[in-house]
């Protein structure tokens, strides 16, 4: 946090020694991502003010509720994607983990609330195993994340098609739909659940040893390994997390849609990356936070809905989405850059050598 830190080794030692001396930081200490995360929430607030002025109908509670619910799936998928990107990788298998888990979920549940627990467990375990496979491939076999997750995705796609033969039998239990949609305008439980998730993630990130080790690995895997952090385990774990969140997102989506079907996860490949980008994460790793991703998901959802009120054709909406992503990442970079320059000259060369390693 000092602005005139001495460069090189002493700086490094300071940073790693902090690992073993837990400091009392607030829950919302976002580290390097602070600027960007704040930025996305500021934009969100600005957008809300815009809506209040120009489209007051959208500012009502029920509309806001809809925007949040629709953002929830992307946010959960973005949680895993963000964790993976934090370590400098990327997860291209999220769409098909979503679809496969949702299909298994629906097949086991067969539309009965009684089967919820079993179906949920099965789906999450599948996501976990697939995520672990990704993680092991990346860490133990040194396979590039793009390749590993792409391969897993392709195998899942073919496997799902082969197993179902095109027709998915069964449907998600009604309680999931209730969770996602609420009833007769009442508050859907997914919203408080999402808030709880944000608090949980922030807590783990800042206050637990796992979180601190994750930060160390994200910022500088070599140095953290020297400091005794099991970076391979950490990296494997983020892919596992991504698998689990993808499974959860798939289940949530099946609740929203009322059914599971092949390819239901496809739109979430690019959007999961987009919301992580909007949240100010660095794709070289080491900077990012779920609060940013959450803000990004809300922003994207709100944007799409607002654009809808202007009755623009689909094509224009797509162009707008792309432009917002570009503007957001440019703004995040420009906003963050002045602060960065002062800080870590010694870290810079390490970081650059890591930049080469993955993306």
């Amino acid at each position, binding site marked *: 946090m000092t602005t005139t830190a001495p460069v090189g080794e002493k700086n490094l030692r300071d940073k790693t020694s902090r690992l073993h001396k837990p400091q009392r930081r607030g829950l919302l200490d976002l580290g390097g991502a602070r600027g960007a995360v704040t930025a996305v929430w500021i934009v969100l607030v600005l957008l809300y003010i815009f809506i209040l002025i120009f*489209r007051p*109908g*959208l500012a009502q509670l*029920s*509309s*806001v509720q*809809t*925007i949040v*619910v*629709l953002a929830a799936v992307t946010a959960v998928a973005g949680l895993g994607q963000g964790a993976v990107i934090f370590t400098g990788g990327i997860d291209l298998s999220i769409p098909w983990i979503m679809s496969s888990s949702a299909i298994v979920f629906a097949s086991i549940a067969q*539309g009965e609330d009684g089967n919820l627990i079993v179906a949920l467990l099965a789906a999450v375990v599948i996501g976990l195993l697939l995520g672990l496979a990704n993680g092991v491939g990346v860490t133990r*076999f*040194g396979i590039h994340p793009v390749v590993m997750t792409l391969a897993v995705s392709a195998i899942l796609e073919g496997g799902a*098609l082969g197993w179902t*033969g*095109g*027709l*998915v*039998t*069964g*449907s998600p239990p009604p309680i999931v*739909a209730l969770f996602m*949609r*609420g*009833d*007769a*305008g*009442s508050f*859907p439980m997914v919203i408080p659940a999402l808030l709880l998730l944000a608090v949980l993630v922030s807590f783990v990130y800042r206050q637990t040893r796992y979180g601190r080790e994750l930060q160390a690995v994200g910022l500088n895997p070599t140095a953290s390994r020297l400091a005794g952090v099991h970076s391979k385990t950490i990296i494997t774990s983020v892919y596992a997390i991504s698998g689990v969140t993808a499974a959860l997102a798939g289940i949530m*989506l099946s609740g*929203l*849609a*009322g*059914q599971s*079907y*092949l*390819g*239901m996860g496809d*739109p979430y490949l690019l959007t999961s990356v987009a919301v992580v980008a909007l949240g100010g994460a660095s794709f070289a790793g080491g900077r990012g936070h779920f609060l940013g991703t959450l803000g990004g998901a809300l922003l994207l959802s709100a944007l*799409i*809905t*607002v654009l*809808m*009120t202007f*009755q623009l*054709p*689909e*094509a224009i909406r797509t162009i707008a989405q792309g432009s917002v992503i570009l503007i957001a990442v440019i703004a995040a970079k420009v906003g963050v850059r002045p602060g960065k320059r002062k800080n870590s000259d010694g870290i810079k060369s390490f970081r650059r050598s890591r930049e080469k390693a993955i993306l």
Partner: protein
Amino acid sequence: MKQKQRIIWGLALASTVMLTASACSSSTADGTSSADAADGYEIALSMSYSGNDWQGEAKNLVLAAAQTQPLKDKIAAVDTFVSGTDAQAQISQIQQMIAKAYDAIVIYPISPTALNNVIKQGCDAGIQMFTYDASVTEPCAHNVTFDQAEAGKVTAEYLADLMNNTGNVVLITGVAGTSVDEARTTAAEAVFKERGIEVLDTCAGDWAQGPAGECMSRFLAAFDNIDGVWAQVGGVAIPDAFDAAGREYVPMIAESANEYRLRLQDPEYLAKGLVGGSYGAPPFQGAAALSMAVQALEGEEFPSTIDIGFEWVPQADLKMCATGAIEELEAGCNTFPADLVSTGFMADWWSPEWTPNISLSTLLNVEE
């Protein structure tokens, strides 16, 4: 020696894969043969996307038709191939089918124009080329389809009537950029314009409940003056979206999903004001194409577009089936009990002309 470990694992993986592959390669082609005919026509079914209820049903109807009379004794095998959303893959597969000299190829094309060249190759090789539901613009192909524009028009008119020719409507379309979607939507928009109903907005429902429901939720958030919903697919998700938002139902048009049809007859939903009509692309088009292909092989001539009509069912004409036996279907029932089929099952699959000997249970138990 991490590297050594890596190589060994890599080679182990490779050999496992190859062994599994060769073990599985013994007759894993998904095809079906009729019980007795040793000779008969060899027909290939080329499907592009296959991941939704409609596609699965259409395929099963083709296979079921090949396994029952009157086609059973004439067909030796129907081999199915799925290419996904990659046009090149479908082109390659059809080229292989031509090389293998199938007698006829029945196609669900990924695009109305992308396959023209390869379809022409097939015609030149003397193979009967039939498409179903989606058409292609290659003149030598025979397109078994229905009038998409007519479907858009008739359903829009019904909705306009329900709305008393006034108010605002939202449109939930199919996959943007396809000619099927474009034909239906343009026709519907023309009707609304003529009747003085304003189209608030359109949103791509991608012919799936998920995106359709999302569109509807966003519409409900964005507009509070919706008086009607015209959708191509979304009959289950759209009322759910209304429920979730705590808004009252408005007249709607959606597809022939079984759950939607059940709700249109369900007193609980009727009490909440669910009014609407059900239409859709009939899944039996594939079976019809198969039947016509066989007739063409036997010498009959067909024009390049064959309109076999579609089933348009206003709410009043919905009728429950008990078990889906053939007599019931012949008597005109068009909705199935919820415990027999899934929610998205398309209920307009039966036709007296093209699937006369296929009952619901035959369809659901088709062997691959």
